[in-house]
């Protein structure tokens, strides 16, 4: 089996394992973050492939989908769930900013290595800092969405 498939299996296992660190009482928050992130990644993922910015030579459902199913459907949404449920809501702005930095960097660095040494992802007209910036923006959007969603939802349940 080629190394790319081994990496994919490893990533799937690791991501599913990540689900177990989500606290039981925050399942709903994790679900909303996961699903909202899926909608964003689906669209952005399709756009970057359509305009030839990134390609994924080795991928799941390769016949019918040129975007990365693994990353967009599962990996990034799950990491976003983790990001949201452990968000340091009561800390200072600087601490929150550091939290964003840590997550974006932790996702960008492995991607650079995967780009360099494997066929899982290929930057065509793309750079690592675009990855970093889009991660930052989409994390922020998800956070805002969750705040908006849960602000009124409990009030409406009365």
């Amino acid at each position, binding site marked *: 089996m080629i190394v790319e498939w081994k990496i994919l299996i490893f990533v799937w296992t690791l991501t599913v394992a990540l689900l177990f660190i989500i606290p039981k009482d925050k399942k709903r928050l994790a679900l909303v973050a996961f699903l909202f992130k899926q909608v964003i990644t*689906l669209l952005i993922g399709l756009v970057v492939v359509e305009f030839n910015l990134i390609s994924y030579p080795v991928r799941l459902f390769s*016949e*019918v989908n040129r975007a990365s199913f693994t990353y967009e459907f599962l990996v990034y949404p799950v990491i976003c769930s983790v990001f949201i449920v452990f968000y340091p809501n009561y800390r200072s702005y600087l601490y929150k900013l550091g939290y964003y930095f840590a997550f974006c960097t932790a996702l960008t660095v492995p991607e650079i290595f995967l780009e360099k040494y494997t066929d899982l992802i290929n930057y065509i007209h793309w750079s690592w800092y675009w990855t970093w910036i889009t991660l930052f923006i989409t994390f922020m959007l998800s956070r805002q969405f*969750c705040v908006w969603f*849960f602000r009124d939802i409990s009030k409406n349940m009365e």
Partner: protein
Amino acid sequence: MEFNYIILITIWIIGVALFITFTPKHKKRRLILAFLICQAFTWLSDLLLLNFNLIAFPVREFPSATDMLVTTDYFLYPLLCGFYIIYEPEQRLFVRFIYLSACISTLVFIDIMISKFTDLIEYLNYDWYWTWLLFLCIFAITNIIYQWFFRSKLLLEAEKRITQ
């Protein structure tokens, strides 16, 4: 402009108009939640149907990126699912099932019309009753997850703490 694209744009306009006019303000988030749950399932089922050559979308929004059709499966049908959820009558299980069947039949009727008169959807080794069954399952599962989400308002306390 080509007829198929006019249909796609029409679907978007009608969808947004329906969302704006027929969503009660206090149920907006509930509709969005149902929408989000539903799109995850349509995404997955679409890829499987395409992968096994059961269905095809000859004209689509992102032809070189994917073989999927975004407008119906990620916008229109999840939106219908959202309306199905927020207008579901609080009645016996049997009544709710009839209501679900009516919603699914409407969806399938739209799907058949699109496949008949446009190049957007094409059934290969597939038939309308499969669409009916598939969406019955998707809507029912969405409803189950949705009901779980709102089972008890006390359970939302932890979420409130971290987002407010």
